[in-house]
Every structure is written in C-alpha cells, then in structure tokens.
C-alpha cells in the first residue's frame, strides 16, 4: 500500500517526528511504499544539517536523512513554513543573499501542492503533530 506522512512539529520538542520515523520504518519493513514525507509547520526544523545532539541521544535529522538515502524516500520541506523559520537550502540561501544555509542532505524544499499531491496519490495519509 502507498502511504504518505505529514509531520507538524520539529525534532525533540515533541515526539511527533520520532513516532513518524518509527512508523515509516515499520511501514517500509512491512513492504509498503512511502510516497512522500511532508514536513510542515515547525516540522521543517527536522531538516537541519546543523544539529549536534548529545552523543547518548538520537540524531533525529540524521535518522531521516539516512532513511531517505537507504529507501529513496522523498522528504519534502514546505517552502513557506521553511522561510518563516529559517530553513534554507543552498539555492534559496543564494537567492535571499545569505552566505549560509542549513538544509540537510536528503531533504528538498518545495510548495504546499506537494502535500495535496501526496494526499491524491497515496492510499493513506497519516499526520503526526502536537
């Protein structure tokens, strides 16, 4: 079956991203397809490449990035939500005149239409939030 996932909260503050990650892993292990993971609201903060969590704790942005690499997951970060909150890929940073950027590998920035498309193309959409 084809799933999509929406994540509304950033890493650590709420469990939403953790639960979504465990759900995604279990879905893939069970042979389901994940059409897209859409990061909205503070969920965009999961896409940072600058996190350095304590060594005895999980690295949530990295877990997503690795899961994406291993399973060719489409991790989409909402551009409007990202701009409000300071998540930038290298191209967007250049456009905005910033020398720095902070988007992790495996994530891409795109529009809200990607969420609607995920709803249309998937058999199920599951929302994780707070």
């Amino acid at each position, binding site marked *: 079956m084809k799933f999509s996932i929406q994540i509304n909260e950033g890493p650590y503050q709420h469990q939403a991203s953790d*639960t979504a990650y465990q*759900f995604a892993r279990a879905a893939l292990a069970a042979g389901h397809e994940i059409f897209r993971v859409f990061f909205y609201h503070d969920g965009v903060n999961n896409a940072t490449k600058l996190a350095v969590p304590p060594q005895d704790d999980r690295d949530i942005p990295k877990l997503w990035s690795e899961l994406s690499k291993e399973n060719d997951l489409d991790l989409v970060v909402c551009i409007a939500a990202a701009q409000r909150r300071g998540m930038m890929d290298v191209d967007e940073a250049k456009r905005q005149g910033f020398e720095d950027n902070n988007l992790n590998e495996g994530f891409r920035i795109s529009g809200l239409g990607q969420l609607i498309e995920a709803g249309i193309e998937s058999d199920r959409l599951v929302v*994780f939030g*707070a």
Partner: protein
Amino acid sequence: MTLLHTVNKSPFESMSFDTCLGYAKDGSTVLLIEDGVYAATTGNSAADKIKNASGVTFAVLGPDLQARGLENKLADGIKVVDYEGFVNLVAEHDSVQSWL
C-alpha cells in the same frame, strides 16, 4: 467506511481524547499513542469512558506505554500494538484522523 482515530495527548490535560470519543463511530478504532497512552491505564476517568464506548475498538502503542512505565496499569479490553501493528491499523482502515 471505517476510520482510524489517533490520540497523542493526555486525557488529563487536553480535551483531544474526549473530542475523539465524540467522533468515534461504531466500527472505528481509536489508537492511543505518545502521551495519549495515559488514557489506556486503569483507575481513572479515561478508563471509564473507554468502557462506555461500545462498538469502538481501542488500541494502544506498546512502545509508548512501556516508555512511560505503565505496562502493568493497562486497562482491560485495550489491544497493545507495536509500530508494525500501527501500520497494519492504518492499512486496515479507510482513512486516518489524528486528534492532535
């Protein structure tokens, strides 16, 4: 069509659980996750509400219940599932409403 409802908030701090019960029709399933698992424990008002919600299936995410140290407080009649079971519940129902 059948609906899977998820609740991730404590029934003692948030109205999400109560609101969800108002929307859980016969044949639907309510899955308690994250801080929602507290509703699956005994000896409180949430347990009574679950007992009275006939026709609705209740499940709880085991990993979240264990994390909170409340496995031995699980109320009767609530099915424990792991993440794979969560995935199965999503697949078995026609759609999912998350009561955030």
